[in-house]
């Protein structure tokens, strides 16, 4: 099996609230407020691919779009024992939206060998849009399944993808090649790389492509492709103070508490 895994490097989602800050543009988080880490769902996707490779052999290729620092995410993936890595260098300050990202990824995939399976994370821990996988499938005119937590072979030509749904799961049969976005489950917890593999990964080549090399104009990226534009980004006022429910009687307090809980429960 020839598998491509799309990775994204994001701002550490565990950044403490007090450290979180918005940059000068006012439209994205300040990258200096925390470390950059690999998006967890992308790691789940890589783990899924690694398990398929462990079972059936084949090759795993990593692909990311990002600044130079995104190479770290690729190196970590290589340390987990992916075979090759490609970085589409985007050093504009401006974050691309999902549509622009999918276009760039698709252009890179076109340049590479044919794949049997293309995986992405279900969404990223920064913007959490969850659009890229589906858009990429459309760019490539391939079938797509979202929220997949297990993949198995069905003969030579097809794959079975298990989708986590609201109420359980569904299995899809899909012809190769296919695109899937991966969600976390208890059997795709990313493996811890071995130290020797980390050292080796630092010596492996990472191919860097400029957008130009993919036929995308650097100057107008991502603006030309963008279909969703951030108008404003704001930090909600941190209500660090707990609102203590007060009232004349216990009954009254319970009633107020129930209202608050019910409001949230209804929204779920």
């Amino acid at each position, binding site marked *: 099996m020839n598998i491509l895994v799309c990775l994204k490097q994001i701002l550490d989602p*565990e950044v403490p609230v007090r*450290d979180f800050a918005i940059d000068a543009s006012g439209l994205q988080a300040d990258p200096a407020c925390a470390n950059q880490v690999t998006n967890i769902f992308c790691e789940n996707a890589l783990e899924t691919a690694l398990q398929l490779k462990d079972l059936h052999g084949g090759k795993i290729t990593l692909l990311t779009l990002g600044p130079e620092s995104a190479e770290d995410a690729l190196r970590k993936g290589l340390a987990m024992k992916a075979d090759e890595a490609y970085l589409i260098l985007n050093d504009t300050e401006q974050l691309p939206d999902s549509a622009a990202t999918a276009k760039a990824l698709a252009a890179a995939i076109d340049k590479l060998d044919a794949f049997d399976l293309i995986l992405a994370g279900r969404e990223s821990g920064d913007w959490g849009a969850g659009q890229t996988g589906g858009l990429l499938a459309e760019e490539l005119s391939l079938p797509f399944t979202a929220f997949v937590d297990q993949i198995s072979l069905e003969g030579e030509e097809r794959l079975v993808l298990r989708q986590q749904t609201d109420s359980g799961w569904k299995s899809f049969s899909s012809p190769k090649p296919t695109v899937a976005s991966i969600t976390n489950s208890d059997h795709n917890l990313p493996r811890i790389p071995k*130290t020797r593999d980390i*050292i080796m990964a630092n010596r492996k080549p990472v191919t860097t492509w400029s957008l130009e090399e993919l036929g995308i104009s650097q100057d107008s990226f991502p603006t030309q492709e963008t279909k969703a534009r951030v108008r404003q980004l704001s930090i909600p006022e941190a209500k660090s103070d707990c609102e203590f429910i007060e009232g004349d009687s216990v009954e009254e307090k319970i009633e107020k508490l129930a209202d608050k809980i019910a409001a949230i429960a209804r929204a779920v």
Partner: protein
Amino acid sequence: MMDHSEATREVLWNISNGWIMYALLVPTAAIGIYGIWKRFQSWKQGLPAEGRLDNPGKRLRFLWQHALLQRRNMRQRFAGIFHAMIFWGFITLTIATTVVMIDHDFGIPIMKGAFYLYFQSLFVDVLGLLALVGVALAGYRRWKTKPTKLVYTDEASMILILVGIILATGFMLEGWRIVATNDPWGAWSPVGYATGIVSAQFFSVETLIQFHLWCWWFHLVLVFGFLAWAPYTKMLHPLTSALNIYAANLEPVGASLKTIDFEKAETFGVNALKQFTWKDLLDLDACTECGRCTDACPANTVGKALSPRDIILDLRGWLHEGADDEFKLIGSTDSLESDRLFECTSCAACVDACPVSIEQLPKIVDMRRFQVMEEAEFPETMQQAVNSLEERQHPYSGSQFSRADWMQELDIPHASETDDAEVLVWAGCGASLVERNQKSIRSLARLLKKAGVKFSVLGRDEKCTGDVARRIGNEFLFESLAKENIDNFKKHKVKKVVTACPHCFNTFRNEYPQLGADFETVHHSAYLGSLINEGRLKITVASERRIAFHDPCYLSRHNNLTEEPRDLLNSTSQVAMTELPRNRQNSFCCGGGGGMSFVDEPSDKRVNHERAREILNTDADTVAVGCPFCTTMMEDGINATKGDRKIEVREISELLDEACNGESNT
């Protein structure tokens, strides 16, 4: 009055064909020396060990104290004393035999006169008796009281019986000779003399002469047999433990982990004998099977399977079996199961307890390294901590705090903002990212301000020192974190660091210098103490707390720092301190070191609960702690076990803050 200068005795009295003895000596020596040579060969397969033979003066002194004076051994009353009796007895007997040899074989007449009477007769006789009593006591323990820490093998029993018979027949030979020769100096060997007198009540002199002859050859065969056999048993330990004590780690225990050259090392960590150093392998042969390490081990004490003694003995088993290079140690026996290796809190109680300076902990860490770096197989929650260390340079995944939170409103300059700071205060992950401990570090900062100390911090630029990573076994991660911190210290020209975390303290003091760091580190208990001594801090309201101090392993055992915290605590209260039964170097771990803070121990096997029960058995109303891990662990343990008892866990700075300011809670 007889002339003392005449006193001596005839060597080889009653023995003809004495040449047979010399003839037997050849095969005995050959077998024995072959045994020793084989052991040497097996140690030589190990890697080089650095700095184990330097500084001979210091090493000889160390050897004198712990081998000859049996210092460490004597820490255990019963076993220590009988072992010393046997040990000194045999040393004396060996000297006496050498004297005979010099006198008889080399023809230098030294065995006469006062020397003969006082040493060769009286002293040797009395020490021989002590040795015999020692053997009897050892037998009593082995066959009667049977403590669990001992290893019960036929070999050990055989050795004890053999040694007993050799000593007893020695006295018989002496006694019978005295009676038969009517030795005028006989009474100078009281035990032998008494044996002779008693024997003469039952047997004629002729019979005793006959007995003497048979017994002499019997004794000789036993002694030679023993000498030939000993190098193949744990009775090699008089030699190996002496060598081992000579080659001991002279640095603090906290400096005993080795670095790895990642460019050159063939394997990271140890999973085969030849991946250990020769000193590690010598350690194995030095073990006397006394079991003190396992007895002291907190994990073992609370019912976990980890046993440092069994680790040493099982490794030795493979060494003796000549396990080949490919043989994988981890998982090869129960005691070498990976799970057990990850129960170790790195408290070093085992290292401290060992009478012959064996270093169990570094071997455990070596094998952990293999599991972590080569296999990536270790407890999942430790993996989470390691992952967090890689991604955000602290192990507390999920913490909602930033490293700058504790210093809010305290207005402390960053190291880059000031040139005239006397010290840099290093908070560490445990203090800044765990809510409870922010209180402690704030107390420390307030005290320093009150004393007018100019200090700075690194705040968000702090990265984990790497202690957790190193003890878990991820040396690679440790090294990279350490180098980043060292660079940062250099960049800010830091000369002196004060920290409230013994783990950071140990890492800075003992481990960073291995990687090129050059700054001084002080634990806050010592630093605050000096501020009081200099009069910069004054106690205004000494409390009425009865304080018991829980010594952190990384201060007491790893760094021999035990009095500074006590002096400080004593000054904060009008009431005398209480000592816990296990204190100072003998302190019992809180359970939080070695990455164990990131593992959920089974609820009936918690180290902190064991320690909490010990504390609750004293009359203390305050447990003073000097380590963020200890704070968490002791608070958790005390809360789970205290019932209605009123008792609080307080960090050293909090208590001092209270005594200097009359309040502590902010």
